[in-house]
């Protein structure tokens, strides 16, 4: 009886640090998760829509925009801005929402370059 008790107590004594370690690790994981989630709080519906539209339309829109502002088409002072816009378009190649935003910038640039 006494021997069994000693065995149980020693098992308990040995398992406490392991349980504490697991608890600490889980707590740290939850803290990290919370911090990442609060920092990157995004709307799933809008993100899903953007991804679906990007798969469907962004290639087409990219081609349309990149042709419009190709730097070789501008020989005057607009060339610099065109280069800047081309870089932006290339960067947002797979992001439909971003390309749509840039489309407005491109329209403004083509119609009234002085406003930019």
């Amino acid at each position: 009886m006494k021997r069994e008790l000693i065995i149980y107590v020693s098992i308990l004594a040995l398992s406490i640090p392991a349980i504490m370690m697991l608890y600490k690790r889980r707590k740290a994981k939850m803290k990290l998760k919370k911090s990442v989630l609060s920092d990157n709080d995004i709307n799933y519906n809008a993100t899903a829509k953007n991804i679906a539209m990007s798969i469907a339309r962004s290639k087409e829109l990219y081609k349309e925009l990149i042709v419009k502002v190709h730097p070789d088409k501008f020989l005057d002072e607009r060339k610099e801005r065109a280069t800047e816009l081309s870089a932006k378009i290339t960067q947002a190649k797979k992001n439909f929402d971003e390309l749509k935003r840039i489309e407005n910038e491109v329209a403004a640039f083509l119609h009234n370059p002085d406003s930019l």
Partner: protein
Amino acid sequence: MANNIFDSITRFINRVVSVVSTGSLERVRIIREFNLVFQEAFLQGSLAWKCVVTTSAGKPEYKHELSTFYLRSGFKITIENDKNLQENDYIEIAGYVIQNLAFVRQLMALGYDTLIVVGRNNHYGAFIPLKTIANLHNYMLNEGL
């Protein structure tokens, strides 16, 4: 038919496990939103492919700090009408998902570590380790971990 029943049961078990293990409906919500949007886009004709999103087994070697158990760590997009798709197309579709870094981080925080884009009928597919797209090191430093 048998496959469909098996898929439905797996999906249901995954949802229950997600809710019980994380104590929130976040993972269920993200899958539901994506499926609704993809279905709507397909039915409206704006998206040529019928995509279905599920939680699936990820790759153990893609594990990161917040990964969940590997059998539930894959964010899987299955393309149902995959007849004309080539291997490169899957990588390209995966590219549209991973361009949003905030979303990738969100997936990582929810325990996903592998982005899987596969076809229903052919054996091609893309397996992307999320930790190579966005890392959590800055957060770990800020939290003093």
